[in-house]
């Protein structure tokens, strides 16, 4: 072995030793992070990412839980678009619900937050009272209550009877049933209200003082100061509440007894998905429904973010 060869071999082992050292160093540097991350990482891979990819695959199959899935191409999506009146009904109901409930809920939340922000005494009490429905609202008990409130002989009609009005059976009339659920959603304006209150506190009062000195009316102050400065919060609430509205399930399930009736008038998208998956065991089709929901939410979120440059003002 020549000298040069020997030295080359030496550097070789030196290099591999260095590599081994730096590898051990990398392990030592990164190990604690991954140890702490491990539960989440395992959950993310096995319970979120993995299942999401599997459901994407299942959406192109005829999976029925009992037999192995057969690949059917775009058939599920085609059926949805062309041959499934219940899907169309569910889309109609869900979009109507979102379009009606979200703006109303946010309008109430903002109006009440602005009233509470005037430094009134008793703010914590009012805030608590308005927040309580948000906290309780998701439970079956409240859905049960709503069913009775709007029943033919429920509280609402008793109140109307005092004024000599004979109310319809709100829940069992397909013309009105969805609106009772919109009211239920608007009733829960408390949590966006609290976020609005926190946002309103951030607006410096001297801006309003300066505006009043210049003779700006309060409606002008609202449009020119409050709304622009609050726009990031409005945007946030709007996105979160819209996504939540798309995902609503329990009230429609309880009020309609799981059917989405009368005549599909409360057939929320998620309720239809549930019926297809766990009532009819069309798991492939239900997976396709789930992915369509993801796409709808993704498109909505993307458009909302794109729109921010026209109406949301961030601090520079």
């Amino acid at each position, binding site marked *: 072995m020549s000298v040069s060869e020997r030295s080359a071999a030496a550097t070789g082992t030196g290099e591999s030793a260095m590599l081994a050292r730096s590898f051990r160093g990398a392990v030592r540097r990164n190990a*604690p992070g991954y140890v702490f*991350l491990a539960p989440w990482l395992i959950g993310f891979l096995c319970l979120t990412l993995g299942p999401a990819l599997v459901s994407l695959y299942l959406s192109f199959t005829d999976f029925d839980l009992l037999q192995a899935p057969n690949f059917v191409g775009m058939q599920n999506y085609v059926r949805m678009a062309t041959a499934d009146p219940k899907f169309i009904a569910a889309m109609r109901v869900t979009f109507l619900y979102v379009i009606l409930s979200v703006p109303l809920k946010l309008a109430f939340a903002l109006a009440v937050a602005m009233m509470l922000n005037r430094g009134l005494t008793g703010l914590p009490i009012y805030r608590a009272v308005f927040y309580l429905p948000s*906290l309780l609202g998701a439970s079956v008990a409240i859905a049960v209550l709503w069913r009775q409130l709007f029943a033919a002989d429920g509280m609402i009609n008793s109140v109307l009877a005092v004024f000599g009005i004979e109310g319809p059976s709100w829940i069992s009339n397909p013309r009105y049933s969805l609106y009772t659920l919109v009211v239920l959603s608007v009733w829960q304006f408390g949590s966006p209200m609290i976020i609005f209150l926190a946002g309103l506190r951030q607006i410096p009062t001297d801006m309003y003082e300066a505006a009043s000195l210049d003779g700006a009316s309060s409606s002008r102050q609202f449009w020119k100061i409050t709304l622009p400065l609050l726009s990031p919060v409005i945007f946030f*609430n709007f996105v979160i509440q819209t996504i939540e509205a798309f995902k609503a399930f329990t009230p429609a399930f309880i009020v309609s007894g799981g059917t989405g009736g009368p005549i599909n008038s409360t057939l929320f998208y998620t309720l239809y998905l549930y019926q297809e998956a766990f009532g009819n065991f069309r798991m492939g089709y239900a997976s396709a429904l789930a992915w369509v929901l993801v796409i709808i939410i993704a498109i909505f979120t993307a458009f909302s973010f794109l729109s921010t440059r026209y109406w949301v003002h961030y601090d520079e």
Partner: protein
Amino acid sequence: MSDEARVLPGQGSDHPYLRSALSHCLLMAASFVMLYPILWMLAGSLRPAEDLFGGGASLIPSQVTVNAYPQGWFGLQVNFGHFFLNSLLISSLATLGNVFAASLAAYAFARLKFFGRNFWFALMLGTLMLPYHVTLIPQYVLFLNLGWINTWLPLIVPKYFAVDAFFIFLMVQFFRGIPRELDEAAQMDGCSPWRIYYKIILPLSLPVLATAAIFSFIWTWEDFFGPLIYVSDMNLYTVQLGLRSFVDSSGTSSWNELFAMSVLSLIPIFLIFLFFQRLLIEGIATTGMKR
């Protein structure tokens, strides 16, 4: 002029006292309307069954009786005490898992340096927006293959893997606010990351841990979809499922009993609300929770 200069946001009136009185009237009326349905349910649960539809909209029962409570309690084959115990167990175990797993991940994201941290963090944030329906069916198949259907495991075990990224996000925000000098000093003294986590970070984070625990408990308690899918044996029912069976079995014939059980099912949430209101409201205000 000087009067106007003291005007507070939205207060353009010349009569601040009148305006404030008007606001109070309006807010009190609104509070009444907001609480009316809940009070009506409470009143309904105290009405005798014969009073079925006679009560109308009034809050004051013609005759007060608590009979609906024991009747409702034993109204199904399995009594509600069983459902309450089940819900309490599931919610407590789920809460424990959520807080434990989320705080571990949040500590890694907020404090430890490791390869790929930003990548995983971005993915974690991405899952916040993902509707759970998209993982629903494969998860169901997974739990079916594990033999977990008709047990509580699908409702509890995922929480020990921090599947609800919301809580991680909440805690990361809080951990980032803890002065770094504290853990750097501890590191100098040779403290391991594990020791820093449970000797420094956790004790300083009690408010956020409590907030996460409270929301986790309430959300699990109110969860209807999970138990609906995974639990079919009535002995394993949660309160929410028990209420739903009650609706199905009784229709509108014993609505005072239904109301009584509904009122009871809300009491735990109401108590949490009473005692931890400040934490709930701060949690929402600082992170913007959905409900």
